[in-house]
């Protein structure tokens, strides 16, 4: 229970910091909106499924951008404020604390994704009719958790580096492309396949599209539930990697004494 309490406290704390720092709106809300706007403008004259494909992609990019930026910048900010050391000194493994933050960051991503839908409907009259709203919400939520798990893996690197923002910038677009948010991964060179398929959100996005559009020429063959199963397995692998990495973080941070530096 104390661990879950630390996670919940960190979730609430991240929310407080989010609302107290208006500049977070830029990477968290405005930038993904601009990306979606570009996608919508590109596809505005296309037929329904393509527009919805773009809207979903925009929403997913927003979710990923949020997870990445918020995880990276929240830890970078902790370094600037000198609080990373105090948090590290608490009697709770860092992973439980960062998990709470990653969950908040991903939740903001969901809000962002939903805003993109509303925006698409109101401004572009995009046909965002879903085939199965229930399965869509389920896939969306599980993709959010998978993103949080992936964010947790990256967070371990953010804790150790003094240049989290460089990592954040470097990882943003490869994931947009690699997960198929921007366009179907079937269009990518074959050698990118293993990388794309090793990312949980790739399967999540496919499941989201199944729920929204039904089968498309670019859908994976194992269907909605198969997508979710693969994403679930990958998310568990991310969690296991995160546990190992955070153990290493604990060791390296105490060995190299770099948490107070910025």
């Amino acid at each position: 229970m104390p661990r879950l309490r630390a996670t919940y406290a960190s979730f609430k704390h991240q929310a407080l910091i989010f609302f107290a720092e208006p500049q977070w709106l830029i990477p968290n809300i405005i930038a993904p909106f601009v990306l979606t706007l570009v996608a919508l403008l590109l596809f505005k004259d296309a037929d329904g499924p393509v527009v919805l494909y773009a809207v979903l992609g925009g929403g997913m990019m927003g979710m990923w951008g949020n997870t990445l930026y918020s995880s990276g910048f929240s830890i970078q900010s902790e370094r600037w404020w000198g609080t990373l050391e105090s948090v590290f000194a608490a009697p709770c493994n860092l992973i439980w604390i960062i998990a709470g933050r990653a969950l908040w960051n991903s939740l903001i991503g969901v809000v962002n994704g939903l805003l993109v839908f509303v925006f698409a409907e109101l401004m572009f009259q995009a046909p965002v009719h879903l085939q199965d709203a229930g399965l869509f919400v389920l896939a969306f939520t599980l993709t959010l958790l998978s993103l949080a798990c992936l964010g947790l893996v990256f967070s371990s690197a953010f804790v150790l580096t003094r240049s989290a923002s460089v990592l954040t910038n470097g990882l943003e677009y490869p994931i947009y492309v690699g997960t198929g948010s921007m366009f179907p991964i079937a269009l990518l060179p074959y050698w990118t396949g293993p990388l794309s398929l090793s990312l949980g959100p790739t399967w999540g996005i496919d499941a989201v599209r199944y729920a929204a559009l039904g089968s498309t020429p670019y859908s994976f063959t194992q269907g909605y539930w198969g997508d979710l199963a693969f994403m679930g397995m990958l998310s568990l692998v991310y969690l296991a990697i995160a546990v190992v990495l955070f153990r290493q973080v604990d060791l390296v941070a105490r060995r190299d004494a770099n948490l107070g530096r910025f």
Partner: protein
Amino acid sequence: MAAESVIEVKDLVRVYKSSAGLLGKKKKETLAIDHISFSVGRGELFGLLGPNGAGKTTTIKVLTTLLLPTSGEAKVLGYDVSKQSLEVRKRIGLILGGERGLYYRITGRQNLRYFADLYGVPMSIRDKRIKEVLEQVGLEDRADERVEDYSRGMKQRLHIAKGLVHDPELIFMDEPTIGLDPQAARDTRNMIRDLKAKGKTILLTTHYMFEADELCDRVGVIAKGRIVALDTPRGLKSLIKDTSVIEVEAFGITDVELEAMRALPGVKAVSAVMSEEKQIMRLQVSDPGEMLAKVAGSLPGLNIIGVKVKEPTLEDAYLWLVEGHA
């Protein structure tokens, strides 16, 4: 020492490794703590004194599990700081000084609530406990303002509240009064006294000798990573009991005069307080009667306001020790 030991340090060593140059090929090792050993009894207020870079903060960080020792052994409340870090962290409070270490964009109370949650303060008493520590540090009226609007002294008080919110039995304080105005520093010292009166064990580091003299039961003097003396303030002062201090108050004392005094036979140590208005130079000597004339003769053309012979203070003992006389 009769009291049960709550901190036991044996042969502790900490080496910092760093690299520089292209591809980090230039490796450098810095010995921050060099085989130190000491223990602190329950309820004791123990001070670590030393110049900048002596190893005080490194010692505190090892004992609070923020750093791993390179070798040696350190136990806090019976737990090994290397292997049982979570057990140690539950039971200790860490108060780091300075402007950083707080969330500026949220209120003082929100800061305390977050750390109370991380330290597992029971929910049934959390808000009551926060109220208590806010009262203890005199911040109850400003607790719901953002920390960015706090003065330096208020931030320091919030640091103290943060370290006390889970009611730890052992408290580490790293230079708790540094950068505070005299009033705020005095308030902080009074808080430290109150904590000791409540039975808390405290290990503090400080640059201020009068502070250590006033507060500490025992003091370890640390220089270049080694403990060069460990005793009560009175015991440390007695190390230079055969020494007197000639205090020269004057206008126009510069580094040239200080060097001249250091070179004078019979002068053991020299320190000075240099301000624009006047300077005060303190010379440690064995025979003040004989040395007074020599000192006056070596300061020609200086506008001397006064010369006094005084008993040595803890600061004099400290200077004598860190200048390599131990």
